[in-house]
């Protein structure tokens, strides 16, 4: 239920009082509400839950998690 998927904002438009974006998830695009992330801009990555972006992903922090992955790989035995 609390599944949220990261996607990249391709474009954003105003629709009445809402801000709607076209967001790409690995090749698939969907309409997403940006009402909860007013600062998000095209090019940003957002986490999307039931049609709403709930956060803008911090690129520096995402890189830190990726580096942690490389670190774990180094420490893992060759094959479990």
């Amino acid at each position, binding site marked *: *239920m*609390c*599944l*949220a998927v990261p996607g990249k904002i391709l474009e954003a438009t105003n629709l009445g009082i809402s801000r709607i974006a076209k967001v790409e998830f690995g090749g698939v695009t969907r309409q997403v*509400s940006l*009402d*909860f*992330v*007013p600062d998000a801009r095209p090019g940003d990555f957002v*986490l999307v*839950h*039931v*049609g*709403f972006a*709930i*956060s803008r*992903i*911090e*690129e520096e*922090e*995402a890189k*830190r*998690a990726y580096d*942690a*992955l490389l670190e*774990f790989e180094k420490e*893992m035995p060759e094959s*479990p």
Partner: protein
Amino acid sequence: MEICGGQTHTIMRYGLPDLLPEEIELVHGPGCPVCVASLELVDRAIEIAGRPGVIFVSYGDMLRVPGSRSDLFHVKAAGGHVRIAYSPMEAVRIAAENPDRQVVFFGIGFETTAPANAMAVWQAKRQGLTNFSMLVSHVLVPPAMRLILRSPANRVQGFIAPGHVCTVVGFREYETLAAEFRVPIVVGGFEPVDLLEAIAMLVDQLEDGRAELENQYSRSVTRSGNGPAQQLMHEVFEVTDRQWRGIGPIPDSGYRLREEYAAFDAERVFGTGEIRVQEPPECIAALVMQGLKKPVDCPAFGTRCVPERPLGAPMVSSEGACAAYYTYRRHIGGEVAG
């Protein structure tokens, strides 16, 4: 203990328990809203969905959850208008397109989903819809953690807090929990590497004798969370007591619609009254969701209880601990039945 069912799913899917030393045991928490939705609530949903003139809209997972006598799929099969939606805004759209029907959305979820469901109600009010309502059963994570921590049988020594719940609400309340119960808590993400890192951070805390809140999922979570989302959720919802399936009532553990939004409250619109029901006695879901038992400890697991014919909700939802074990671990020799 990881709280969130999505994290349980990642843990089982990627076989993380097999990568960890024996001393580290992962127990699975109550963070599956489908699993904790009370039997009374499911019966109420079935009752409303079966009424003539109603279009009942729900997230897909809820349809197979057994009520005391039936489930929403059976209502649909019997000709009831039950539709699956990905977003609550679809239900608002359906209501606008079908002014002669009553459209009811099954508003379940934890804090992650609350802003979206609040937005649906807020938009419906703004659009002046008089045929949209929500059957609300929102639940909150911290009261459930308190219940687990206060239990004399508790053996959880560290928590992975739910990353998407904290994306919305931040983690100040979890700092309080860590200090109050002297238990390490790490806000964790949902990728295998996130969970491994969160576990490593918990082990570091335990080895150092610390009991703090740390944030592993910093690419999405900040201390104060998502301000606009919280603002709307508090505009539409207020805290209330909630019945948790298998666990019982927990004070101040959920949301209901505020008085200003009473016209959108399906329980008031349809006046379903009080429903009292009994859980199937064989199901140990309550113990599983408090981390006191593993799914494989249940004699019905994989035999009398399978995803197609579930006794309890944790076998239904893709996030339920029983379904995660059934999907990923039942073929592992010796350990499980099935």
